[in-house]
């Protein structure tokens, strides 16, 4: 079934503010800052003001790797300096000095058994970890994200881009120029349910989808306006009607064309992006079998599907 095609015809048209951080700002400062908020203020300016509200805390926590290592060490457990030293290998002097700073600014507290983070510090740290993981992921997949268009993916989903952390990039090579295409096809052919968003037709697709429909695979297809009609024609009315009648085919037309390639099932997700010149990057695709990534893909599809 899987074939290699020499030239792939890809067409793309188109407060009482109870601040635990007691020394960062006084309560009065916080109240003044919040009172400055104007309900009619534009949302973007409000975001910048929100940033001002948390800026100094974020800066203090992230300005020193030693501080973050100490916080990391006591994130879940109360520990004395000796245990922090054992875990981090940081010098005693550096630990003491930074703990003093953290304690002075209200980020942690001490008791007879050692040091413990405040709840707010824990939450800040957790968010910083998430942000850091996202940065690591973006850098890991730099070639995939760089110079590609992802405006088609809602910000809501990009905010959770770290869900794709455990993915891998499948790239074509000189010895296997159709690796991306062939890998996708193999996965599709072994699926019992599948959803897809695409706005181009590969010559293999109609044949493959004919078979999937006949074999009662559950298919949800979202196609761009331009290819919706062509695709239906290539599959044939008889098979389309069979799929619709058996309720294993859901075929929808995108209201607005999306420069996005998304194929997924309960077992995997493939995400392909378009380059800045609007052509599909057929040489690399992101692939994952990770639960979070699968969930991310399914929710993204449902969102697009719901608005189509």
């Amino acid at each position, binding site marked *: 079934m899987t074939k290699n095609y020499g030239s792939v015809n890809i067409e793309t048209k188109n407060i009482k503010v109870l601040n635990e951080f007691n020394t960062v700002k006084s309560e009065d400062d916080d109240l003044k800052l919040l009172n400055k908020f104007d309900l009619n203020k534009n949302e973007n300016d409000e975001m910048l003001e929100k940033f001002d509200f948390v800026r100094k805390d974020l800066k203090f926590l992230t300005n020193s790797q030693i501080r973050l290592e100490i916080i990391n060490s006591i994130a879940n457990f109360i520990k004395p300096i000796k245990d922090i030293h054992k875990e981090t290998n940081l010098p005693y002097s550096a630990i003491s000095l930074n703990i003093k700073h953290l304690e002075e600014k209200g980020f942690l507290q001490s008791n007879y058994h050692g040091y413990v983070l405040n709840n707010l510090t824990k939450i800040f740290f*957790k*968010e910083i970890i998430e942000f850091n993981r996202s940065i690591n992921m973006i850098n890991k997949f730099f070639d995939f994200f760089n110079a590609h268009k992802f405006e088609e993916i809602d910000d809501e989903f990009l905010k959770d881009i770290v869900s794709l952390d455990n993915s891998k990039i499948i790239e074509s090579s000189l010895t296997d120029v159709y690796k991306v295409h062939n890998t996708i096809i193999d996965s599709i052919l072994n699926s019992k349910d599948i959803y897809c968003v695409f706005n181009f037709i590969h010559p293999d697709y109609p044949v493959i989808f004919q078979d999937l429909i006949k074999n009662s695979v559950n298919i949800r297809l979202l196609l761009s306006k331009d290819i919706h009609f062509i695709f239906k024609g290539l599959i044939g009315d008889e098979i389309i009607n069979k799929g619709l009648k058996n309720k294993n085919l859901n075929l929808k037309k995108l209201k607005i064309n999306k420069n996005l390639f998304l194929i997924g099932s309960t077992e995997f997700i493939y995400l392909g992006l378009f380059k800045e010149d609007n052509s599909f990057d057929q040489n690399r695709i992101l692939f994952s079998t990770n639960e979070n990534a699968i969930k991310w893909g399914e929710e993204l599809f449902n969102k697009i599907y719901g608005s189509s």
Partner: protein
Amino acid sequence: MAEIMNSNEKCNDLNLDGLKEEPFDFSNFQELRTVISSESRSKILLQLYLNKSDLNNVETLKNKIKKPSPYILNSVRQLEIMGLIKRANKTFYLTSKGSIMAIIFLKLIENVYIFKKHNFWTTHNLKQIPSEFLNHVYFLKDGMYYHSTNNDLIKPLNEYLKLIRSSEDLNIIMPIFSKPHLDGIFKSTIKNKSTLKIIANEEIFNLIFKNYKKEIKILIKRDKIRFWKINLDLEIFLTNSSKFSSLNLFFKDGHYDDSNLLLDKSIKGIQWGLKLFNHYKNKGILIYLDRI
């Protein structure tokens, strides 16, 4: 956090699942630091993302960020080196990497802003709110926080009952047996001919079943009630409907706090609540009430 803890005892009042399993990876620490720890770099990144349509040249950035030009130019240069921004015709734009960075940075800001602004989150036990939900707390950015006052001790309860009266189908995670709440819930469900879905542990379930037999019978007859029993002492009181999500939490000492209520009527807030309800529903066992 003054309570006595043994050395290396787990700090259990906040759910930090996965935090130690996946230690902080410092390989890109400099990048994180470069973005977060400088006011001007952070603000340039946010300005270029939030106000894309502005002509973002040095002059605009200078006025928006309120820093002198050399300062702006230096920050811009560092962001360019990091591959986060690019320039064309003396105007600055985010690269694709810069755009994603700005988006995840906004999420960080929105989340920590809520936690810092509302002590509701830091004074209560959050251990039964899974990490995934804390990480999406920005969904509740339009939430209203109701507190008891000396003049009105039951303000949160009254707000809750007011909403229940006009709401349709209700999804509830019920950690307590409270007559005022349950009277309102059953009364409005029967009157509005809506559906009631409750998740509770065995003890609460038995109390509800014993005290609201008549109401439950009516709802069973209408096929408008579902109960999930969960093998857990619940410490969150969540109510979700198509119109709102509300949340009451427990104090760190294990007592239920009826004096603070979070109420969110936004679509995102409703989604957040529904997902949390479903999360616990999937851990429970559906009880066939008509067979009891």
